[in-house]
């Protein structure tokens, strides 16, 4: 006897992510979820991003790691609240972890919440954290075919950031091919190449965040009316 259930496998995570999304809307928080392979430069991107803000900015960071709090220590010197989520072996962040750490950190909007996921291109793509956008990082020391190997995350990400562009003269990496591959998977994906070492491309990245914030605020205003 077959009984139809029709339910999302991750319905509990989706429910919690929905609550987070509502909180972000009510408190005017822009949340972005940074996802990449280990070593693609998520933490370096965040360091330079935090360094570009003034104390007048309201910014917080949640950073995921399987085992250590090294990233939080790296990021804590910029005057903004940073909290490490040690997942204890779990290869991704989920909405419950974000909810708990956000509560414990006591961050309230309006402001920007930067979430650095665990270094992994597979599992984080399945878990909604209530973010306004998933952002995937690809570094020039990886292969141009990463988008083809991991289509799930490149399909779900709004933006692909190509990192470590200062190394381009030293590696055989073709940015056009990487972008072409990403757009095969996700034709609308946006693209920003940058270097966290030299700062090249950061103006574009910060403008992108700003534009997203405006878009989210307008959407929230429309909902509230």
């Amino acid at each position, binding site marked *: *006897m*077959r*009984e*139809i*259930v*029709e*339910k*999302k*496998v*991750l*319905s*509990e*995570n989706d429910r919690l992510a929905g609550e987070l999304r509502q909180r972000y809307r009510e408190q005017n928080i822009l949340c972005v979820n940074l996802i990449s392979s280990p070593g693609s430069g998520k933490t370096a991107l965040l360091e330079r991003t935090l360094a570009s803000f003034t104390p007048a900015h309201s910014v917080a960071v949640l950073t995921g790691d399987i085992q250590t709090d090294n990233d939080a220590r790296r990021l804590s010197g910029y005057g903004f609240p940073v909290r490490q989520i040690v997942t204890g072996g*779990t*290869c*991704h962040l*989920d909405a419950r972890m974000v909810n708990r750490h956000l509560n414990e950190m006591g961050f309230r909007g309006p402001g920007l919440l930067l979430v650095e996921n665990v270094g992994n291109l*597979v*599992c984080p*793509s*399945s*878990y909604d954290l209530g973010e306004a956008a998933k952002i995937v990082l690809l570094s020039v020391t990886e292969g141009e075919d990463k988008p*083809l190997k*991991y*289509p*799930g*995350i490149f*399909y*779900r990400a709004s933006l692909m950031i190509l990192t470590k562009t200062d190394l381009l003269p030293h590696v055989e990496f073709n940015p056009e091919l990487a972008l072409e591959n990403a757009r*095969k*998977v996700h*034709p609308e994906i946006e693209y920003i190449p940058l270097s966290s070492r030299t700062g090249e491309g950061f103006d574009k990245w910060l403008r992108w965040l700003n534009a997203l914030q405006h878009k989210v605020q307008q959407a929230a205003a429309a909902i509230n009316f």
Partner: protein
Amino acid sequence: MHEIGIASSILDCVAAEVQRRPGAGVIAVGVRIGELSNIDKDALDFAFEALTRDTPLEHLKLEVEWCPRRQRCIACAEEFSVHDLELACPRCGANHSTCIGGTELDIVYLELEEPCAKS
């Protein structure tokens, strides 16, 4: 390797559904998984077996319907499955289409034992 988490979520859902139907024996759970969900079949089977071993759900079967990525052409509304990341419309050749399938991660049905007639 998030298949353990996925298998665990499937079993949580089964347990909740079983609780709503006291006395019902569950034979199988049917799920729908899209190719963009990044689930590996062997890893999911392994996780499911490991998590049900020596539990009341030990004999529960996992039945998976694997779903390809599906697109709908913006120009001519043709719906097509994607092979080798070829996103051009097979009917009109247009390059713009929207994704309408392939991200599924759903529990679809439970196969229950026939209830015994009450004496």
